[in-house]
């Protein structure tokens, strides 16, 4: 039974969760002897006060859009994909192979090729746990966690033993050719007369990520596949009745999910570092969980949450630079957001539902509704 109006469900609950997370974060900052207000000011000026700051904020946000969408689409099928991290690592491998071994004539073709490879590698890495879930009933949360570790080991092995240039000690590939260099926001905005920071890493991948948000919205809410994915997520037994194959939906959803995580690599590997290094993902796969939870698994919500986390990341880096607050503050905030918007959802929801119920009862003292089917 819906107790709360839709706006409360969509806006109020996440907002209150966010405020709770913010209050606790402020307490943490106070606890380590810093001033939360000054910290927020510093974060805002550092992340949003210049095109340089924006460039980093949007760069991080691009990563989080991909990983957030990755977790969100899986949530719609009631699958919890914790493997975004590993899938993004493999995506990086795909990008590296595409950029290093194919002589691209132009960045645009390279982008298409690298995106395809990134998505394929990420999807393949997600497809194995998906298959094991669908066919063998192996819990996908555990298998995707395991696959994160396996991905790290595999990548480490490949970088050290195969892709590392001769004479280099670094477990990293060679630099990608110049033809694969993606245009940054500076390059894109200069023709229309906006002078965007040259040093910031935000690049054309941002547009790909925004397009991905839009396409995912269409997919989830406007296509038959999306209808089937959501139906399966709500009720497996009903899905079977309707002729929706659980195996098919699990596979397709996870392949899309892994593909999206993999696509993150065009931003961080191709757009920013221009070579594949160990730990290129820097935990972005996990942040996707927080982003998807906060965005209520809706692509628009994911878009907004990704920008918020991009801001937190860039702001956090600035804090670490100018104060004695370590970058790990962001990890704490991320944890609190996951905690309040995910695990402690009911703590926020239950009191709210009570309030709305009493408001409704106060408005209509004698409910017209017939007590037709009390839970029996």
């Amino acid at each position, binding site marked *: 039974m819906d107790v709360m109006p839709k706006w409360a469900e969509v806006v109020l609950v996440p907002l209150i969760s966010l405020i709770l997370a913010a209050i606790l974060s402020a307490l943490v900052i106070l606890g380590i002897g810093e001033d939360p207000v000054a910290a927020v000011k510093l974060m805002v000026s550092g992340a949003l006060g210049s095109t340089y700051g924006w460039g980093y904020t949007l760069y991080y946000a691009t990563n989080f859009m991909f990983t957030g969408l990755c977790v969100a689409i899986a949530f719609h099928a009631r699958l919890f994909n914790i493997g975004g991290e590993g899938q993004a690592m493999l995506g990086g491998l795909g990008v590296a192979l595409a950029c290093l071994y194919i002589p691209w004539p132009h960045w645009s073709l390279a982008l298409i090729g690298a995106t395809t490879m990134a998505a394929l590698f990420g999807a393949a890495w997600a497809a194995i746990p998906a298959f094991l879930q669908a066919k063998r009933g192996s819990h996908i949360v*555990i298998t995707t966690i*395991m696959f994160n570790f396996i991905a790290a080991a595999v990548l480490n*092995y490949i970088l050290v033993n195969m892709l590392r240039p001769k004479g280099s000690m670094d477990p990293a590939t060679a630099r990608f050719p110049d033809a694969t260099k993606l245009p940054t926001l500076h390059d894109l905005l200069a023709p229309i007369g906006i002078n965007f920071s040259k040093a910031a890493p935000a690049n054309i991948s941002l547009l790909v990520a925004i397009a991905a948000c839009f396409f995912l919205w269409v997919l989830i809410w406007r296509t038959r596949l999306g209808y089937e994915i959501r139906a399966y997520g709500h009720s497996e037994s009903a899905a079977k009745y309707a002729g929706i194959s659980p195996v098919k939906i699990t596979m397709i959803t996870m392949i899309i999910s892994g593909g999206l995580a993999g696509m993150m690599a065009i931003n961080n590997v191709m757009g920013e570092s221009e070579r594949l290094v160990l730990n290129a993902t820097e935990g972005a796969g996990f942040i996707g969980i927080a982003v998807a939870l906060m965005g209520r698994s809706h692509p628009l919500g994911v878009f907004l949450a990704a920008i918020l986390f991009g801001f937190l990341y860039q702001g956090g880096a600035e804090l670490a630079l100018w104060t004695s607050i*370590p970058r*790990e*503050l962001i990890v704490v905030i991320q944890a609190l957001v996951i905690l309040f918007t995910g695990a402690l959802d009911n703590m926020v929801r239950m009191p709210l539902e009570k309030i709305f119920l009493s408001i409704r009862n106060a408005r209509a003292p004698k409910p017209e509704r017939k007590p037709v089917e009390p839970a029996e």
Partner: protein
Amino acid sequence: MDYMTLIQLLDSTVRLATPLLLACLAGLFSERAGIFDIGLDGKMLAAAFFSAAVAAMSGNVWLGLLAGIAASLALSLLHGLASITFRGNQLISGVAINFLAAGLTVLIAQDWFQQGGRTPSLIGGARFNPITLPFADALEPMPIIGPLYAELISGHSILVYAAFAAVPLTWWLLYRTRFGLRLRAVGENPAAVDTAGVSVIGLRYAAVCICGVLCGIAGAYLSTALQAGFIKDMSAGRGYIALAALIFAKWRPWYALWATLLFGLFGALETRPDVIEALIGIKVQGQLLGALPYVMTVIILAGFVGKAIPPRAGGEPYVKER
């Protein structure tokens, strides 16, 4: 490979298996009661930091151990609050706890010690030092048995012996006591426990607290016995390996011992590539060996080698219904 190498290898196996074993038993209590816990890693990490920090400040490792247990217990209660009281998603709660620990430990370490997220090195009474068992020195010269006793069995910290003692204790508690019966029942069918007049919430909180204590000891072992101090992210995914071991062990205490010893052996081999090369004649990359526990767990989960059936009510919050 000579005998001494084998003894050394087994010795480091035991040392590496100990935190896995403690965390694995911790997870066993929680999951047997129907509460999935992927936050083992975070709890160990928090305990590792607080025990090292308090030990460093007080010079007393026992105070450190208590602090570590308290920290881990606090996170356990948070997990209980989210997954038992507010019936939230246990997996998401576990993820949050892992991040919370990863972030807070560095934040607080930096605030307290200003050493880039680590504690000072622990010395003397601030560490758990090896215990020499009786007659170890006297027996050492004896062939075979001597080194076995003196090197492998003797000479570990008290926490190692505690961890191994925890296995039969867990078994006894689970299968021979009223508490164990109820604990197993609540993980299989909480409604049966509820209608029998026993509090589901109470039992589950008890299980989660035991889990917290054991994770606390595991974390304390990492920073005060295995290493001499806390460093950032020092649990290094051990909580996840323990989780893997738990599945590998099919949620049973004795199997947990063998599983963690096996994974401990992999860990020991990782640092001795020469031994593997001598054994199988091929050079095996350490990174791949490190991934072996995960690969094996996936194979077990896939049911290709025996089927791991988790507790039936695991992961589901209990809602009263008829």
